[in-house]
């Protein structure tokens, strides 16, 4: 039994992991682009970007998942997600990427705006280009400042992936819960918790390591 459960949960965890990794791959860079939009001096760019961030951060991810999955079909009669498991996974991924990009963009914005103007000015009077100032002077300071909030957000993402089950993406908790119906046992659910704990523990160690690496300057 233990072996059957382990194998089933591993299968679910693989789905969880795929959603986690792909969400990060797309939302970390997309968040940076959104943050530039939200800091833009041009108000026709800034205003809509800030509006979208407000909507996405102000509504539950669960709601966004449902709207993104069912919305196109019901409103536009268009089957944009394709059929079957693959289609549902893509819909979930899109919802996660949009949601997390907005959160990351606010962290980036906070980090970039916390760098004192004097750092830019020192670079300018030394004849550096804007590009050089950003990459050689500002960027590493921003990274150092955003590692703690980003790692917090990433660990939240590990657990948020379980919301994908609302549109029937067979992630690990879905698989764990199936044993309640099929075998009348609850311990597989606790077992899923172990997966989460181990994985977030691993991430905590990783981010602790990065923070330590960047502690050589203030």
């Amino acid at each position, binding site marked *: 039994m233990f072996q059957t459960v382990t194998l089933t949960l591993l299968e679910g965890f693989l789905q969880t992991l795929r959603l986690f990794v792909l969400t990060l791959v797309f939302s970390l860079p997309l968040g940076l682009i959104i943050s530039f939009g939200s800091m833009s001096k041009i108000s026709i760019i800034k205003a809509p970007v800030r509006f979208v961030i407000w909507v996405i951060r102000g509504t539950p991810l669960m709601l966004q998942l449902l709207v993104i999955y069912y919305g196109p079909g019901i409103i536009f009669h268009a089957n944009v997600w394709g059929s079957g498991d693959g289609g549902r996974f893509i819909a979930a991924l899109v919802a996660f990427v949009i949601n997390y990009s907005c959160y990351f963009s606010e962290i980036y914005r906070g980090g970039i705006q916390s760098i*004192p103007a004097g750092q830019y*000015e020192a670079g*300018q*009077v*030394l*004849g550096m*280009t804007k590009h050089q100032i950003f990459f050689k002077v500002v960027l590493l300071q921003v990274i*150092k400042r955003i590692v703690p909030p980003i790692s917090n957000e990433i660990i939240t993402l590990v657990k948020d992936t379980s919301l994908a089950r609302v549109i029937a993406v067979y992630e690990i908790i879905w698989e764990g819960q199936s044993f309640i119906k099929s075998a009348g046992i609850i311990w597989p659910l606790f077992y899923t918790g172990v997966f989460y704990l181990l994985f977030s523990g691993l991430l905590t160690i990783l981010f602790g390591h990065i923070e330590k690496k960047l502690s*050589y*300057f203030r």
Partner: protein
Amino acid sequence: MAVLEVRNLKKSFDSTEVIHDISFSMDEGETVTIIGSSGSGKTTLLRCLNFLETPDAGVIKVRDDVLFDSSIPESRSEEAIRKKRLHFGLVFQSFNLFPQYTALENITLAPTLLAREDKSIDATLIENRAKELLSDMGLSDRMGNYPHELSGGQQQRVAIARALAMNPDILCFDEPTSALDPELTGEVLRVIRGLAKQHTTMIIVTHEMSFAKDVSDKIIFMDKGIIAEEGSPEEVIDNPKNERTVQFLANYKKVN
């Protein structure tokens, strides 16, 4: 020949005119000190010279080379300004060292980047020159330290070395000791005095009146965005003619 000539410089922020028609010139090797109360436009003037602010009107010439002329739009473009600002160096009140680089790297960073685009600069000499400057500043044993490991006075001396490494024609100081406690102020003023002795061309904004008096060739007293009085230290500090200068110096003496 004048190394720097500023004519009819004006600068407003929104509707507040901070610099109201300033003209002055200085010679090679001179030390000019700018004094005056807060809000008189001293810092804004330095920031205009370093193109951190774009003047609304006026002309800035270095060795007869027009760096800025408000009537010539091309002289206001960003790329034009980037090269020309290297005629000036600026030492900030708050040092503004780059925290992730060591003292030595703070000095070599900009020259190294410049050497990449300007092949006439010998990149192999940059590090030695930086080490030389640090030892002039009395910081040979601090080359590998990060800014947060240095005292304020040491950080400011690194900042001075960093500015000197770009070989500016005119080195500007914006209240270089205002963020330092009295004990550390001395070591920074000593370094600036040393530079004055070597006839480094400098413009210094400061509230250190006795320092201004014995280091300057010329003192400029600014009030409400204009030069209210200028002359030798003896003229301006010991025998001020302008009523505002008299008032300012009297208030200053009262506090000290």
